[in-house]
């Protein structure tokens, strides 16, 4: 692997420059690669991504129409060993850790330039970095900046914004203007002005808005001065600090001789009664000389081109450029062909350029907005309006907010079906799985899998059987004899222990609630007529709890929706769902109970099995 080719010291970035991206900033990387492709670079400008909290690996990116793999390293040191040609690091670490990451990069001999994006790094830390950079002869751009761009060669992270803007502002090929500003937020605007009034940008740097930027306006202007490809200078300073006076000095001492158009923003500070801290940390005047007015005047006196207001900034740039063309200093180059960079799917979708059939539909919830919606209600509304579990089930299962009585009934069913002791097949299976050392989900599922026609299934079966019979208009007596003829047990009728003399309290509660609160209960009424006949045959042939839940629920659904819709919900398994939902509570309880009691593997005793041969 080769190291970076030696460049003149006034060039930080060229068409071969490659960088490390510190932190997993995949969007920024993709934007850099899009720019690279539009600029007809041969290789992507990102050498590797440093992901200090992850592990080594590869990530896919687009380079034009095709995909490429970029390496990810956990450590910067490894990355440096693997990519000896990289000499720039773009540091996306947070304000807490950016200083350490920068020092780490400074310690690598191959790294010449570090751009720091984070805003809010303590000033003292930044001053330490500045001293270190000076000692080791490194260039530091930022902190608190978007970065910079060498048109048609290399761009730092998110500089230049979208690809559309890069092409509109002709940043994919070099012009003759070197530009340096404080603000990263205004860099796109400045590059737009330059592209409309000159042959375009050669290089643009945003030094960042901190009180102590790593490199200052004048340092970059002096670098541009040395670069023979740059013919004119453009700069945008701001109120606060004394940086612009160094430009004044450089102009007076003829260290800057190329024409410089500059404007210092913040002339409005005189309109404020108290001291004004504008958006940037450094944007505050300490004393008269740091005001924008004073700096603009000093620059003008020293020979810079300073407009009367920002409003004339563009025309002044245009005038200076036109004069340079007239003098023969600048000869505009012909425009290169721009390779077609495919539009990103997301961008195209946002601007209504394309459409795509979806693979999935969802009509019950939506988490795309500020807060997730259950139907038409936000989760916080569900909580604040006290809709409870009943209301939530009503919204997510039946797609409507049913009245309070329905919610109450749903919750009552969940409570009643939650558990039925350790001996029933669901709980038993769950306990056996749990004791076999399985985790919560395995044990729960092991129990749930027993739910079917014989265990818990009576709810569904009863609802279907009784509603069909009721709808068919056959009398309870006909229904019973018909079933008997077919040899089918009536689902939901009969109990092992309970009888007419020893009624099931749960059934009484459900029945009473339904009769008192439902709008109408035709299927329940029908079932009670059936029960009257069956109990005359044997007193334990009562309507049992599964039957009662199923039948009442069929009535409830018909109260709140059309018969067809209600039947569809039942056939899709909504009633079974109610049992699964409720019983999950009990099964989880059994699993936790077994774990808490540290119960060992269960082995069924031989003496409980008859070993027979047929």
């Amino acid at each position, binding site marked *: 692997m080769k190291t970076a080719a030696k460049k003149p010291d006034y060039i930080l970035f060229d068409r071969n420059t490659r960088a490390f991206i510190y932190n997993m900033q995949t969007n920024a990387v993709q934007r850099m690669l899009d720019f690279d492709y539009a600029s007809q670079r041969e290789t992507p400008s990102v050498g590797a991504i440093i992901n200090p909290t992850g592990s080594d690996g590869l990530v896919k990116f687009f380079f034009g129409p095709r995909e490429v793999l970029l390496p990810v390293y956990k450590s910067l040191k490894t990355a440096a060993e693997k990519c000896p040609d990289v000499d720039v690091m773009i540091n996306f670490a947070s304000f807490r850790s950016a200083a350490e990451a920068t020092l780490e990069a400074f310690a690598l001999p191959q790294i010449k330039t570090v751009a720091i994006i984070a805003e809010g790094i303590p000033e003292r830390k930044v001053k330490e970095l500045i001293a270190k950079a000076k000692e080791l002869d490194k260039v530091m751009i930022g902190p608190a900046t978007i970065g910079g761009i060498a048109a048609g060669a290399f761009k730092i992270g998110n500089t230049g914004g*979208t690809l559309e803007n890069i092409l509109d502002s002709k940043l994919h090929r070099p012009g003759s203007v070197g530009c340096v500003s404080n603000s990263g937020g205004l860099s796109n605007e400045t590059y737009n002005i330059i592209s409309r009034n000159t042959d375009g940008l050669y290089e643009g740097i945003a030094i960042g808005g901190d009180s102590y930027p790593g490199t200052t306006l004048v340092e970059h202007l002096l670098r541009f001065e040395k670069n023979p490809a740059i013919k004119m200078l453009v700069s945008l300073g701001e109120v606060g600090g004394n940086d612009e006076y160094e430009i004044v000095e450089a102009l007076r001492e003829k260290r800057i001789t190329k024409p410089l158009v500059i404007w210092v923003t913040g002339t*409005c500070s005189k309109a404020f009664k108290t001291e004004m801290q504008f958006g940037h940390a*450094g944007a505050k005047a300490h004393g008269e000389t740091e005001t924008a007015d004073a700096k603009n005047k000093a620059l003008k006196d020293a020979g810079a081109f300073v407009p009367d207001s920002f409003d004339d900034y563009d025309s002044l740039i245009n005038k200076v450029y036109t004069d340079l063309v007239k003098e023969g200093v600048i000869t505009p180059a012909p425009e290169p062909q721009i390779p077609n960079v495919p539009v990103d799917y997301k961008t195209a979708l946002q601007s209504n350029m394309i459409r795509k059939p979806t693979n999935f539909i969802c009509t019950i919830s939506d988490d795309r907005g500020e807060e997730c919606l259950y139907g038409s209600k936000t989760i916080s509304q569900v909580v604040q309006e006290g809709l409870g579990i009943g209301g939530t089930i009503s919204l997510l299962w039946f797609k409507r907010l049913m009245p309070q009585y329905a919610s109450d009934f749903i919750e009552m069913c969940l409570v009643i079906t939650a558990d039925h002791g350790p001996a029933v097949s669901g709980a038993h299976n769950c306990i056996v799985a749990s004791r076999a050392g399985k985790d919560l989900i395995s044990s729960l599922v092991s129990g749930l899998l027993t739910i079917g026609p014989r265990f818990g299934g009576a709810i569904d079966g009863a609802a279907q059987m009784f509603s069909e019979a009721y709808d068919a208009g056959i009398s309870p007596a006909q229904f019973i004899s018909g079933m008997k003829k077919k040899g089918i047990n009536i689902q939901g009728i009969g109990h092992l222990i309970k009888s007419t003399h020893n009624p099931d309290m749960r059934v009484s509660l459900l029945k009473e609630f339904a009769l008192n609160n439902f709008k109408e209960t035709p299927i329940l009424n029908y079932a009670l007529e059936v029960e009257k006949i069956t109990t005359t045959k044997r007193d334990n042939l009562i309507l049992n709890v599964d039957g009662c839940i199923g039948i009442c629920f069929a009535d409830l659904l018909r109260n709140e929706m059309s018969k067809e819709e209600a039947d569809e919900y039942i056939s899709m398994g909504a009633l079974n769902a109610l049992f699964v939902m409720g019983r999950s509570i009990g099964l989880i309880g059994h699993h936790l109970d077994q774990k808490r009691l540290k119960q060992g593997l269960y082995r069924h005793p031989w003496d409980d099995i008859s070993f027979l041969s047929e």
Partner: protein
Amino acid sequence: MAQKAIREAHGKKLLSRLLKEYNGGNYVVEEHIISVGPETDFDALTKDHPWLASTRVVVKPDHLIKRRGKNDLLLLDASWDEARQWLSERMNNEITVSNVTGILDYFIVEPFIPHDEDDEFYVAITSVREGDNILFWHQGGVDVGDVNENSEKMLVPIGSFPSAGEIEKNLLEQVPAEHKGLVAGFIETLFRIYADCHFTYLEINPLIVVDDKIYILDLAAMLDSTAEFICRGKWGDIEFPSPFGRILTEEEAYIEELDSKTGSSLKLTILNPKGRVWTMVAGGGASVIYADTITDLGYMDEMANYGEYSGDPNEEFTFKYAKTILDCMTREKDPRGKFLLIGGAIANFTDVASTFKGIIRALKEYQQKLIEHKVKIFVRRGGPNYKEGLRQMKELGQSLGVPIEVYGPEAHMTGIVKLALKESN
């Protein structure tokens, strides 16, 4: 953000606490410092600080105001009863200092230290790019004069700490021999605290030496607020008050509150509620330039507000922000009409169309009022999805009954300022 002034009482408490811990506690200063605010219960104060009953005190406003003595805002050598009287006469009073009017509601109370003028020194530490400057002058006090001109200076390069010997040699030549050791050791310790606590400015004037003990009479200090994550423990109870006289209007306070609820940035300052030129500008940098241009073109008096929205606020926040401005600008009628500049640079990543959604909603809600107040609107913006955003604004212009002129990146950013101001004549 960055360098922020703190109250004198908080600064003094911080120093007195840390001076006990640093350098073996050899340079302790007065620790009886009381901060009095609008909610202070004086009876409780008397009980909690028994020394008040037996000590002569000094009382000063604690509002980052300079030259308090010259503005008759200083009570010296008073009993606690006299001080209470003095405080209650001044608490919540509106006063004007150097053309700025504000409410007095914070004071500092400390023991009064009798001393000679000869005992008064000046010491300050200021931050510069290369490190920090220590400034010292043996004649401190109110008549210290131009310290940048007079004082002894010593640049401490970043990362290094001067020894007491170096301080004595560089700064203390004119200090009486018997005090040199004490003052040098104090400044050495002070500098360590300054650095460890991320101060960006620290001025003690005067610093006095009485009976071999150091006293900090007046203190002004700034901390680097971004260092909070490092210094929270060392700082203790600290607040960053607004400059004196910056009393927020109801709307400004509302926007400040909105701002605190979002990761985006929403700022509003009302400059002149009767002004005819209102701005609603995206981006910190662009908002300054719009205000600059209004000022530079000679319409500073017509500029009604300064503000910005940035960092991609969602529709609801932009809506509330826009509504607040529209509400302010449609209170008092002006027969000549009013102008609203919805401006901005070319955004990096903010989706222009979606931020315009909130603004459009607010404009629709204020349709009637905007018509009544003869408002004319100028829009200029670029960035992601700007074409869609501008299209929506144009469409609104056709139905709103309020004239809206719409421009994109083809127009110079501040072009709409000139257009509006031309019409305002």
